[in-house]
């Protein structure tokens, strides 16, 4: 396969409103961080979606391996007591 000449891949995180978390929006190509920011702005905030943008080189994202999903996530499935909904609020209690 021909080598990709469009630059590195950067992950883009957009904050919709001040105080809200930055959410992953997608990725862009760029050769450096300033251009990555501009490309993210042009690709993902064209319709007034954002108040802040983060970009990070995809290489720096550490992702869990799908093969590990059994050991990572399954053990949480049968532990209902970790859910807030597991606990009944006693009648008459205004706050816990």
């Amino acid at each position: 396969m021909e080598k990709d000449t469009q630059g590195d891949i950067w992950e883009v995180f957009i904050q919709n409103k001040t105080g809200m978390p930055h959410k992953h929006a997608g990725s862009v190509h760029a050769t450096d961080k300033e251009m990555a920011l501009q490309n993210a702005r042009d690709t993902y905030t064209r319709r007034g979606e954002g108040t802040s943008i983060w970009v990070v080189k995809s290489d720096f994202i550490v992702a869990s391996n799908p093969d590990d999903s059994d050991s990572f996530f399954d053990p949480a499935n049968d532990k209902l007591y970790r859910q807030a909904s597991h606990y009944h609020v006693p009648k008459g209690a205004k706050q816990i």
Partner: protein
Amino acid sequence: MELREALFNYLLRIGDSSLIGGQRLAEWVSNGPTLEEDIALTNIGLDLIGQARAALSYAAEIEGKGKTEDDLAYFRSEREYYNTLLSELPNGNFADSMSKLFLNSAFFYHFYKALGTSKDQKLSAFALKSLKEVTYHLRHSGEWVIRLGDGTPESKKKIQHSFDEIWMFTGDLFEMNEVDESLIEMGIGVDLNDLRSDWNRTVDEVLSRATLQRPKDGFMQTGRLNAQHTEYLGHILSELQYLQRAYPGLKW
């Protein structure tokens, strides 16, 4: 000179530069070097078309002949267009387009900044809104000039050549006539002589970061004020106006 006549011409200069600049950038659609840059150039083009709409609809209102922005855009000929010569030059390669966009944006950045204090409230509101957009155009094109200039020997050679080729059209940006004089006197227009040093500073800063040579000021091709253009405007207008000329009043 009468206010209405002067202001009408002034608005055409602004609106036509945006319209033609926007139309040129639209030619990049689907031809950008990367998908992201394709979108960026389209965004900038659309900003310019938006500015053209605002300026030309105000121009139509000032003219007072019951015309619309569309009438002004589609039914004027070459010798009735007052855009900057820079904005009508062909796109050429990517370096040509970026150097052209950069020099034009640097001018309009300082122009809108100054026009923001115009006594004509509609004009100053338009200028302040456009300034936000042009600030980004300047940044985007400037960053590319720096990267191409301070990039590979090949990219440097190409963009230096671009600047050398179009430099003769930069004098046209600062030309003034009796329209400017009347509007400056009324506190509506901008004295372009005051912008020169700001423009020089902006351009020099980017060129030096780009390790490029500023071309020498030699012969300057002018003509904007008299609606005298390069051979390229006629072609771009024929494409821009074709549909409305063939089917006047056609709607989507």
